[in-house]
């Protein structure tokens, strides 16, 4: 049985070549993602439209971050096809992967600001490594990005001196500094107060529109995120449960989606570990 499924995957991969699609920044075609032999997501087919903010929603442990790891090339699909910015993944070499990553901005849940560098140097780091810009131009660019997130005056501060919301905005400025065409946000609202949440979401929306980006926001904060998103994808029980507009999601009567949206403890999404594992 398992052999049949595996063969089906290879047949699918061979026959369904993902056609280059300029309207989609990220394309998943029947992708299976596994960690340590355990399948986390199976038969995932979805598209992240260019120029839009796509919210990927789902309960904790559903596989949202696994999806992000696949897009960033950290996790190779077990089967199926995955294209990011018209580039097939997995990459053949580290150099190829790094070339692709230069075109992606990733905001990590933990921010990942280098603690021995100031805010200015953190934002300047990708420019210093990947470009040969003269110092005045580099400083101007960093200032512009910090200004875009409202932190131009905090350039001299150390990451340890920032609040959670400020640190996230600095990380956002750093992710944007190379002007990537796509932005990936991993749980950008975790640990933030409602005001900071609003500020970060407003920034995501404004930057997406003003810079012409394609953004993917991975979160379980449904109520806060949906008003800022153009599309919503819900992941639960090992696969994609919904792919549509936020309005369609809100109007859905599907018991699984309703349980997730209304936050009820009883329903198709299991609470205990065993039911989560077996879907």
């Amino acid at each position, binding site marked *: 049985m398992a052999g049949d499924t595996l063969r089906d995957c290879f047949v699918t991969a061979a026959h369904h070549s993902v056609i280059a699609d300029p309207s989609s920044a990220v394309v998943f075609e029947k992708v299976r993602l596994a960690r340590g032999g355990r399948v986390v997501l199976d038969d995932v087919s979805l598209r992240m439209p260019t120029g839009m903010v796509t919210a990927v929603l789902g309960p904790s442990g559903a596989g949202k971050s696994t999806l992000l790891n696949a897009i960033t090339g950290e996790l190779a699909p077990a089967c199926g096809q995955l294209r990011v910015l018209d580039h097939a993944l997995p990459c053949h070499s580290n150099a190829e992967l790094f070339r692709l990553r230069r075109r992606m901005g990733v905001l*990590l849940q933990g*921010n990942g600001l280098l603690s021995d560098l100031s805010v200015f140097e953190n934002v300047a780091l990708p420019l210093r490594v990947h470009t040969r810009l003269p110092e005045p131009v580099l400083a101007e660019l960093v200032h512009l990005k910090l200004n875009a997130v409202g932190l131009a005056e905090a350039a001299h501060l150390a990451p340890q001196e920032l609040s959670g919301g400020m640190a996230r905005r600095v990380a956002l400025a750093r992710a944007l500094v190379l002007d990537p065409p796509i932005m990936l946000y991993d749980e950008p609202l975790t640990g933030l107060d409602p005001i900071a949440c609003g500020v970060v979401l407003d920034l995501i929306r404004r930057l997406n529109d003003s810079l012409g980006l394609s953004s993917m926001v991975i979160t379980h904060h449904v109520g806060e995120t949906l008003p800022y998103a153009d599309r919503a994808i819900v992941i639960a029980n090992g696969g994609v449960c919904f792919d549509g507009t936020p309005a369609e999601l809100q109007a859905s009567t599907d018991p699984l989606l309703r349980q997730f949206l209304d936050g009820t403890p009883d329903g198709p999404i299991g609470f205990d570990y065993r039911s989560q594992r077996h879907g």
Partner: protein
Amino acid sequence: MGDLLPALGRMGVFLARIIGAIRPSRMFFADTLHQLHVIGSRSVSIVAVGGAFVGLVLALQGYRTLTTFGASSSLGTLLGLTLYRELGPVLAAILFCGRAGSAMAAELGLMRATDQITALSMMAIDPVGKVVAPRFLAGVLSMPLLTMVFCAFAILGGYLQAVHVLGLDAGFFWGSLQDSIDLQQDFGQALVKSVAFGLVTSLIATHVGYHTPPTIEGTSRATTQAVVQGSLMVLCLDFLISALFY
């Protein structure tokens, strides 16, 4: 033995990765210089104090023993040979493991736990080149200098004890020290050993720190491993170098 060979293999691969990640750029030079300050300069005080006390006790014990045979004038010889051939490089390396090796492992472990290493990778910046290679190189470059500081302070400590406390003639002390130390044989041996110890202790510290699980327990374990494995490897390597080359 079954675990040792794969571990050595992984260490070798990591060393090759570090060497491959070294780039002659301004940023790399600045990072290495910063780490030289953090790892090297900040270890000078502990190494100097350690060296001084080792010199004091060596002179005390050596004087008592040599006096029994009427050879107290050879105290300088004993001090010089013991320090440059064995104690200087070994004890400086063990102090280095405790002071700088543990710090390197803890820093890298915390960088892993706080997503800093992942963030570098996401920015298409090689984390090994940015955070590991400067620390490794600074460790290798610092070790010979720290060994020389250790030996210098140990000889100074030995001189104070022998001449000003025990009453040995200063001429005998410095004369026997100068006559017995051969630049190539003894000073060279200290230099070779210290470079080897710097390489091994820095490699172990960066390897365990970089590959530790991103948890509190992982960081704690990496710090312990850096000190324990580093110190044991120094002792083991010291015997091998002495037995094979000197």
